[in-house]
C-alpha cells in the first residue's frame, strides 16, 4: 500500500442549512487528507455532522464552502456507499442487487454475473444468490449491500453506520469480515459509527467529532498491529485508546448525548 499516496483531500469543507429561524451549522470547516488504502473511522454523537461529511464526500449533498478533491483518475463512480439500511431493491434477487451497479453501467451480463458471484462469495452469501432480500436476516442484507457497493470496484468505500441495525455478535463478525475485505481489496474506507470500540478496532485513524455545532475535534492514530482480531481486543493500547475516545466525546458541559 503506497501509504503516502493521497486519495481524498478535504479542505475547509463546511455545511450550513437555512432553517425557519435562521441558518444552522451542520458542519464547521473540516480539513483532513486521507491516504490511499487508509481505513478511517469517524465517531461522534448524533448531530455531529459525521453523516453529513460522508454525504458531502459522496456528492449526495453539496458543501456550503471548501473543496473536496478525490484522486480517482476519472473513475465514473468514484465512491461506493453503504447506507445505514441495506437499501436493497426488494423485487430483485441478491444476485441482481449486487449486479445492479454493473447492469446500469453497461457491463455485459456474463461479466457482471462473474463479478457479482465472486463478491457474494467474498461476503459469505453463497447459496443465497436467488433469494429475495426479505428472505434474509438484517446482517445478511447488509453483507449484500457491501457486495453491491464493491461490485463496480470504486476506489473509495463510504459506510454510514452500516452495522447499527444488527445485533452485537453479528456486528463483531461483520467487522472482522470488513477488515478481511479491506485487506484483500485495498479500498480506501471511511466508516461512520456511534461505537468507539468499533472505531478503534477497525481503523488506521479515528476522527472524533462533536455536536452543536458539528465539528472535527481531533484525529487519533491507531497504533495497533494488523491483522487485527481477538488479541487486539486484549491489547492495553486498544483499551487506552477507547478510553481516550470516550473522554474526547464528553461535551465540555458534560451533557449527555
Amino acid at each position, binding site marked *: 500500500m503506497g501509504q503516502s499516496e493521497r486519495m481524498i483531500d478535504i479542505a475547509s469543507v463546511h455545511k450550513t442549512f437555512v432553517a425557519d429561524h435562521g441558518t444552522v451549522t451542520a458542519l464547521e470547516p473540516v480539513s483532513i487528507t486521507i491516504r490511499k488504502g487508509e481505513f478511517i473511522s469517524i465517531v461522534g454523537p448524533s448531530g455531529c455532522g459525521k453523516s453529513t461529511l460522508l454525504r458531502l464526500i*459522496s*456528492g*449526495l449533498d453539496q458543501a456550503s464552502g471548501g473543496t473536496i478533491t478525490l484522486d480517482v483518475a476519472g473513475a*465514473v*463512480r468514484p*465512491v*461506493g*456507499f453503504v*447506507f445505514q*439500511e441495506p*437499501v436493497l*431493491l*426488494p*423485487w430483485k434477487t441478491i444476485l441482481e442487487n449486487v449486479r*445492479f*451497479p454493473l447492469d*446500469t*453501467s453497461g457491463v455485459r451480463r456474463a461479466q457482471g454475473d462473474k463479478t457479482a458471484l465472486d463478491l457474494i462469495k467474498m461476503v459469505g452469501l453463497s447459496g443465497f444468490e436467488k433469494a*429475495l*432480500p*426479505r428472505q434474509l436476516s438484517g446482517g445478511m442484507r447488509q453483507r449484500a449491500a457491501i457486495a453491491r457497493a464493491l461490485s463496480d470496484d470504486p476506489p473509495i468505500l463510504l459506510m454510514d453506520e452500516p452495522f447499527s441495525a444488527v445485533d452485537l455478535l453479528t456486528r463483531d463478525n461483520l467487522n472482522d469480515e470488513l477488515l478481511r475485505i479491506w485487506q484483500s481489496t485495498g479500498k480506501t474506507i471511511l466508516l461512520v459509527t456511534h461505537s468507539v470500540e468499533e472505531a478503534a478496532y477497525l481503523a488506521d485513524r479515528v476522527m472524533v467529532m462533536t455536536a452543536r455545532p458539528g465539528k472535527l475535534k481531533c484525529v487519533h492514530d491507531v497504533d495497533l498491529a494488523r491483522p487485527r482480531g481477538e488479541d487486539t481486543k486484549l491489547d492495553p493500547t486498544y483499551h487506552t485508546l477507547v478510553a481516550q475516545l470516550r473522554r474526547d466525546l464528553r461535551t465540555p458541559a458534560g451533557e449527555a448525548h
Partner: protein
Amino acid sequence: MILRGIAGLIATLVLWTAVVHLFNVPAYLLPGPVEVLSRIAFLYENAKLLRHIGVTLWEIVAGFALGTIVGILSGVVFARLPRIERFATPLILLLQTAPKIAIAPLLLLWLGIGPTPKIVLIAIVTFFPVMQGMVTGLRYGEGSFRDLAKVLKLSAWQSFWHIELPSALPAVLAGMAVATTLAMTAAVIGELMGANEGLGYLLSSGQENSDTAVVIGMVVLLSLIGWAFYEVVELIRRRSISRFELN
C-alpha cells in the same frame, strides 16, 4: 373458502326456488332459477348470446387496458410535473365527479352506438384510480432509493425503470383492483343507454318485453363476469405484492 362460497351459492338457489314455489310467486315477478337458466339457454341457441358476451367482454378489456395505460402515463407526468397536475386536476375531478350516467349519452352522441363510447366510458372510470395509484407510488418513493440512484449516477430512465416504476406497482395494482368494479358499472351503463349488442342491450330488451327471466339472467351473467374480472386482477396484485411491496 371456495367450497364455502359454493355452499352459500347453492343455499341461495335452494331458497330462491323454495320462495317461488311456497308463495306461488308469478313468473313475471320472480321466475325460478330453472326458468332463468332455460331462458339463458334459449338466448344461447337463438339470440347469439356468446356474441353479446363477447362484445361486453371486449368493451371491458379494451376500456380497462386503455384506462390503465393512460392512468400510468398521466400519473408519471403528474408526479414529475406538479404544474401540469395543478392545471389538469380541476378538469379531471370535474370529469370524475360528473355522474357517469350523465356522461354516457354525450359519448353516445359523439361516438355512435357501437362499442367505442362504452370503451371510452370504461377508460374514463378506470383511469382515475390507476393514475392516483401511480402518483402516490412515485411521489412517496423512499428517499433512501433516491440516494442510491444518485450515488450510482443513474439516468432518469434507469431510475424510473429499475426503481420508481417497481416501487409504484403495488399502488397501481390497488388502483386497478378498485377500477374493475367501476369498469363493470360503466360497461352496463353505456350499453343500457344505447346499444344494439352486448349483455346490457339484452338486459334492456328483456325489460322492454317484461321478460323478467332474461333480466335476471343478464344480471347474473354480468355479476359472474365482474367477479371473475376482479379475481383475476386481485390475483395478479397479490402475486406481485409479495415481491414488490417495500419492507
